[in-house]
């Protein structure tokens, strides 16, 4: 172990400030260049991996401090209860329609990802990690951890899914003759979670509101049903 790596594992402040600094810089970069592809999560993650590799620091030394930031994912999911509460009236008005569309999203998303991955020869751990890819990352990580997949792989797949959905989602929906803005919003949120929702918010407010509804309902259903769907898929 190098001196650098020793210093890192003894001092949680170093990896914490490194992570916050990298994320802050990546966010500033995206605001400057306005490219969806330059997702700050993706850029900050890549920069830190590159730095650790170049300096020869093992992941464990970084994780010893960074785990304190990672823990905050859990209270952040709890905090999703606030937007969920704020949209309860909206949900109640269209409860049946929303539930049908989100059930379709959840089942199709999990089953198609697992079956395609297995058909192309993916290992079981990779197939499990792909299953919750349309849920928002904290939910996907929890589900993957619970089912014996690889949480880090899920995290990256979820982020890439979000970027793909945000960049191509509206074009795909236009091709598929999905015309209702409510249906478009629900689909974007269900498929591309928070990344798709922030893109929808930039388009217009109605699209954004229904996208966040899709993000929450599909995320919750995916968290609830994925263990059973995986069990059923064998």
């Amino acid at each position: 172990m190098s001196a650098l790596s020793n210093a890192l594992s003894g001092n949680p402040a170093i990896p914490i400030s490194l992570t916050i600094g990298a994320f802050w810089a990546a966010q500033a970069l995206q605001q400057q260049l306005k490219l969806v592809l330059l997702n700050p999560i993706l850029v900050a993650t890549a920069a830190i991996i590159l730095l650790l590799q170049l300096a020869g620091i093992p992941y464990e030394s970084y994780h010893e401090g960074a785990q304190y930031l990672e823990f905050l994912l859990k209270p952040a999911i709890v905090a999703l209860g606030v937007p969920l509460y704020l949209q309860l009236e909206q949900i109640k008005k269209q409860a049946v329609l929303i539930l049908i569309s989100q059930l379709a999203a959840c089942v199709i998303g999990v089953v198609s990802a697992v079956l395609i991955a297995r058909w192309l020869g993916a290992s079981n751990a990779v197939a499990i990690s792909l299953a919750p890819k349309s849920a928002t990352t904290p939910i996907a990580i929890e589900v993957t951890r619970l089912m014996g997949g690889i949480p880090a792989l899920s995290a990256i797949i979820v982020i890439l899914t979000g970027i793909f959905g945000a960049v191509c989602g509206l074009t795909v929906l236009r091709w598929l003759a999905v015309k209702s803005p409510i249906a478009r919003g629900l689909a974007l949120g269900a498929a591309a979670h928070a990344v798709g929702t922030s893109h929808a918010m930039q388009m217009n407010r109605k699209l954004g509101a229904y996208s966040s509804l899709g993000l929450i309902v599909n995320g919750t259903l995916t968290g609830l049903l994925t263990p059973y769907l995986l069990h059923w898929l064998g």
Partner: protein
Amino acid sequence: MNDLKSTLRQCVIVFGCLAVAELFVSLTGIRFPSALIGMLLLTLLLKLGWVKLDWVQGIADFLLGHLGLFFVPPGVALMLHFELIRAEWLPIAVATIVSTVAVLAFTGWAYQLARRCK
């Protein structure tokens, strides 16, 4: 002073919901993410009026506004799995893209179809 007290109350409510959920999960052995149970608990408390919206709004805005940051450490763990990705990049890429298009399609169609039937 009041601001500080309200910040503490916000933390107690959010972390309290998480703590109750984790206790529930470990007592019942249910296979479900504790944080999601905490989220539903917080929604219920807000709906019942036992927790007022402005008691949690600040910390919720903070946590959700910085959601992306908390994803970075689990993402960095990817460096432990480079071999796996090199070996299985094709199923990962195809499954992600095809399945995402399928979700977009079926969510949109299901909503439009269900509304027509109603």
